[in-house]
């Protein structure tokens, strides 16, 4: 064994192999050290990659934690369909949480603006974590998404009230993660921290990972609303909430990112295959979150502020 020259020359690991190995290492650390972990599942492409990595990390066992979706009731239908199937295929329990107060008050993206995100997502997530007593939650955020994410740790500590203090983060050295915490505190863990959007797409191609069909271009009923292009995923509900039926046009569109259908802008596109999508991504120079309204709704540094309040 000492004579390493007797080994055949090994091929250097590719960037995707190294990213995969790192993400798997992170997930196993959490499974070994957290008392009650959960994987937050948003049904988007990053979630799909994260779930795929979890299957790989623990094979032949199923991932030793449940999937949880913090629902807003406003997601695309295709997302709800994919959610149930993915959990079942992975052999994982699926927990769905909807903020009962938001449900009761009928909070929606049209009438309530930023409150919609706050009530359904920020408050909903806190409620769900408290309800089940999860002490570690995996999220699919990446550092290349947004400037304040670039400085967040892979293991990000939250106070008992779920706050994030960017000035008081634990130093993170080598691949050693300090998972110790006081009662009531929790950790958000981001196994995809070091992946870029291109890495994600390349990995989806290489591993043949199923994603929600909305990422691919198709003829879809669309409407214009406040300067954006949206898809009428549920026309009846749309009409009810707006009080009128917006003019619907069939257009060939797809989505770069998936959230609530009235908040997620569509882009006109002919990209119907993964290669087409990557090609389009590389050629169009509009960053990913532009389609989502969340970063812009309260000016500069708004994601940082949301995170301090407990948004994922």
């Amino acid at each position, binding site marked *: *064994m000492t004579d390493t020259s007797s080994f055949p020359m090994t091929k250097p690991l590719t960037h995707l192999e190294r990213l995969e190995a790192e993400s798997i290492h992170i997930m196993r650390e959490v499974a070994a050290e957290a008392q009650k972990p959960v994987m937050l599942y948003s049904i988007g492409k990053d979630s799909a990659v994260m779930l795929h990595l979890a299957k790989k990390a623990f094979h032949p066992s199923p991932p030793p934690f449940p999937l949880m979706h913090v629902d807003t009731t406003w997601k695309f239908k295709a997302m709800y369909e994919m959610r149930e199937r993915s959990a079942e295929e992975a052999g994982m329990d699926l927990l769905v949480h909807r903020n009962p107060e938001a449900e009761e008050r009928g909070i929606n993206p049209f009438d309530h603006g930023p409150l919609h995100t706050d009530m359904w997502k920020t408050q909903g997530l806190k409620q769900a974590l408290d309800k089940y007593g999860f002490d570690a939650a995996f999220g699919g955020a990446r550092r290349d998404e947004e400037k304040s994410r670039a400085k967040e740790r892979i293991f990000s500590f939250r106070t008992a009230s779920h706050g994030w203090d960017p000035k008081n983060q634990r130093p993170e050295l080598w691949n050693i993660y300090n998972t110790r915490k006081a009662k009531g505190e929790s950790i958000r863990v981001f196994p995809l921290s070091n992946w870029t959007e291109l890495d994600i797409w390349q990995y989806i191609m290489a591993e043949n990972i199923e994603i929600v069909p909305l990422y691919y271009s198709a003829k879809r009923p669309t409407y214009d609303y406040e300067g954006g292009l949206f898809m009428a995923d549920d026309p009846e509900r749309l009409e009810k909430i707006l009080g009128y039926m917006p003019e619907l046009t069939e257009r060939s569109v797809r989505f770069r990112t998936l959230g609530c259908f009235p908040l997620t802008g569509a882009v006109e596109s002919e990209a119907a295959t993964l290669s087409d999508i990557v090609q389009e991504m590389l050629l169009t120079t509009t960053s990913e979150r532009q389609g989502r309204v969340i970063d812009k709704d309260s000016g500069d540094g708004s994601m940082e502020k949301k995170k301090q309040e407990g948004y994922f």
Partner: protein
Amino acid sequence: MTDQTATPETVYETDALIAEDIDAYLDAHQNKTMLRFITCGSVDDGKSTLIGRLLYDSKMIFEDQLAALEDDSKKVGTQGQEIDFALLVDGLAAEREQGITIDVAYRFFATEKRKFIVADCPGHEQYTRNMVTGASTADLAVILIDARKGVLVQTRRHSFLCKQLGIRNIVLAVNKMDLVDYDQSTFEHIVADYRSFASEIGIDDFTAIPMSGLAGDNITSPSEATAWYDGPTLIDHLETVEVASAINVAKPFRMPVQWVNRPNLDFRGFSGLISSGTIAPGDAVRSLPSGKTSTVKSIVTWEGELEEAQAGQSVTVTLEDEIDCSRGDVLAAADTPPETSDQFETTLVWMDDEEMTPGRAYWLKLGTQNVSVTVQAPKYEINVNTMEHLAAKTLELNSIGVCEITTDKPVVFEAYGDNRALGGFILIDKITNRTVAAGMLHFSLRRAQNVHWQATDITREAHANLKNQAPRVLWFTGLSGSGKSTIANEVEKRLNLMNRHTFLLDGDNVRHGLNKDLGFTDTDRIENIRRIGEVAKLMADAGLVVLTAFISPFRAERRMVRDMLPEGEFIEVFVDTPLEVAEKRDVKGLYKKARAGDLKNFTGIDSPYEEPENAEIRVNTVEMTAEEAATYIVDQIMPLR
């Protein structure tokens, strides 16, 4: 290696290829390798500008970001109407206002050959912590120098820290060459200056590149302005330097076990990230620290079994034999296993606002191993600016020193210089749970290897059985004058009447003998408690019910003693007397002296008392007499079987 005709377009692939043959483009990008590096420089060396430039040239900036950038550049930028690349990377709102980077930020860009992860590290002294964090995962360091200023104190500091963290590839980026008219002699003078310093601290090799982050000289393409320079551009160099994971493949096999995979009774796999070497079915492996050997049966992955796996891969390994192996153990090549030891010389980088307390127990995490550790006072501290060795009693935030440490269990290790994964560790405060230090193991101290635990035939159970009782340590804690000794004495009298074998260790008495060399500083108080803990443990091993009466003001040390004993044997008795009451009693007249300033470090006056949070027994001496308290305590601990 420098392609004189390279332009940013050929380095980063043209949009044309993406547009014309996306599949060919993707194919080319599917097999990139990955390099992690850090950039170090002081506040105005142009570090953020350089990184912004790298992102910009590799098209990692998108249109809307660019629009925002152009807008911002005019508003708050420092480059007039030009694009201020630094604004791209200065992330958090607070630091935008201050105009400096305050934490490690990770950036990403890619060329055709490699994906790069850049740790953007701040340069000023108070943030040594962040630089060490960024350097811990880096294969290479880019050390920026302002060509107008040359080698500065911070250049030395950054180089020293990179060397300490084991970074082998150093790039000396002599930046802002445009501001010295691309003068060759200025560049050469700086390089010579740096070389003489670098060799002093053991950096024998480095790559110096004259460049301008702002103007883009020698970043992606050779600059005409520096025709006298025939070395690589920055990107050329970054694309070709060997990455650490490739180097680790040639070393003996090691894999710290993270998780035991047991889906059913027929499958038992050991999951982990291979830190060095390669492994294949049929290889002989040894599990450490147990030393048991077996043979690799299979390497299981989701895609199927592998014929071979190498350093940097996360795998699950099954073995031919049922050997004892769990999280924290290390699987290694059977004939070249790493050592185990419990005493080490280390370099520590202190990272917490609260200074190091010599003698206090911290958690140590190394790979997947978690043990309790005590740290000795530093042998010396190192001045990171001058590399001088200084005498030191402790380490404060951002200071570095060489310290000996002792773990409570053997640790499987290798010298940090040989294997970062088995030589790098963190220290965690047991109470606050903060990561307080990063450490690098140098070597094991001989003592631990030569002093072995002698197994004896009469076990602690045998001692206890003969006395017909279960051993206990009743640890009385409370302020001076709270009534600890009085109550402990009453408890012992009652147990004695019940034919229990007991012994009372009293604070003042022990300080007359065993601990007469100790004073009342925090460090001495901790050593006092450590010794009492060891004595109490020996007595419990002998089967006794031990009562101790010590102020023992710190939670960490009471916890340390608790951890020395088997679960359930340590009973914390909090003698809860308010300070006013204890001070009023002042049986020994000590409070009066302390108030007058004649007695220093007196608990409750000028030294803190940390109340127990979950004491097994709590007695309130305002509501109870000593006799009542003693009866209550005895009721709680009986039947002692």
